[in-house]
């Protein structure tokens, strides 16, 4: 007789996966089902904070976002706790147009739970985003902060009325038990 656990134990030492603000399971997907598209960042130096859930412990080794066609601009991606305290950010990153912009950062071990995925841009260049009807993102807890490039040490969280959910993606490795 062999033991077959109800939940399979990973066979690999590491497995990689990504958690995004547009993923199924994250709050904005409850009000928006469309595919993300290229859209202009709403305001120069605006930071957007999106509630995001990590359901297991892991190590974030890379973050990223999609950029639209026109060249130029810089962005900053980070992770904050629910009180608005910065956990880690990339710092300013030159934007590469028409490409996925991946940034390797210092490995960040996280515990399961709720966080804010944060992104700021210094211009109004296009990024990959959901653009739902104004008001819907406020109803899932999305926040913003003006004059916040680069991302601050402590976020001053204000509910957003804008219609822009950037595709902020965190890539993790998860160690087998």
């Amino acid at each position, binding site marked *: 007789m062999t033991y077959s656990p109800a939940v399979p134990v990973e066979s690999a030492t590491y497995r990689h996966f990504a958690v995004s603000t547009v993923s199924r399971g994250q709050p904005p997907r409850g009000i928006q089902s469309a595919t993300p598209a290229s859209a202009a960042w709403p305001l120069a130096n605006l930071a957007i904070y999106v509630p995001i859930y990590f359901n297991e412990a892991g190590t974030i080794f890379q973050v990223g976002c999609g950029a639209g066609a026109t060249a130029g601009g810089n962005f900053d991606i980070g992770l904050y706790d629910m009180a608005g305290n910065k956990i880690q950010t990339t710092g300013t990153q030159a934007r590469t147009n028409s490409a996925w912009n991946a940034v390797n950062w210092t490995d960040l071990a996280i515990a*399961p739970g709720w966080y804010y995925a944060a992104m700021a841009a210094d211009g109004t260049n296009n990024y990959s985003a959901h653009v739902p009807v104004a008001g819907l993102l406020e109803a899932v807890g999305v926040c913003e902060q003006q004059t916040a490039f680069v991302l601050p040490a402590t976020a001053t969280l204000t509910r957003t009325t804008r219609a822009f959910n950037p595709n902020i993606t965190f890539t993790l490795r998860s160690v087998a038990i």
Partner: protein
Amino acid sequence: MTFSPRVRPYATAPFVGPHSIHGWYGEMLDSAGVAASATYPGAQRANYYPIVIPTACIAYRVFWLNGATVGTDTVQVGIYNDNDAGDDGPGTAIVRGTATTSAGANVCQFDNITDTVIPAGRIWLAIWASGTTTTLFRVAPGATLVKGTGGYQETGLAGGLPATATPATMSAYIPIFGFTTIASP
């Protein structure tokens, strides 16, 4: 040494409503479309929707998302226990907000309530409006799909949300509303 499990029970979201992962979530989006502004469907009517809270939490505020036209009605949101008698549906109120005149188009309107512990398990969110001039963002899944959301309605509630819910009819009007588990923003 402390034990830190790798996987924890899903923690309750900061904004909880029928549209959140604890409710119908995005399941109705494909069939009913994205939420849009529409008038409240009936004066003095309460609408109830079930959600499942994965871990106990504190409700600090209730809220609703006003639609494109600001009406002259009052709106009230409450949280109910599952039916104490064991039937399908809401039971007694856990906490009820204050009936408040709607204000502000296309924005969430908040009502601070007494901080209230919400137990894990199935509870019901309720929303009531005094008239039909108020608009809210909502999805309308239609009569043949509404059972999937488990929503009910109760009419003739001149005094707002009742202490004990006694709905009898399914509701095909699912607004964007709920409560928050964070005190601000």
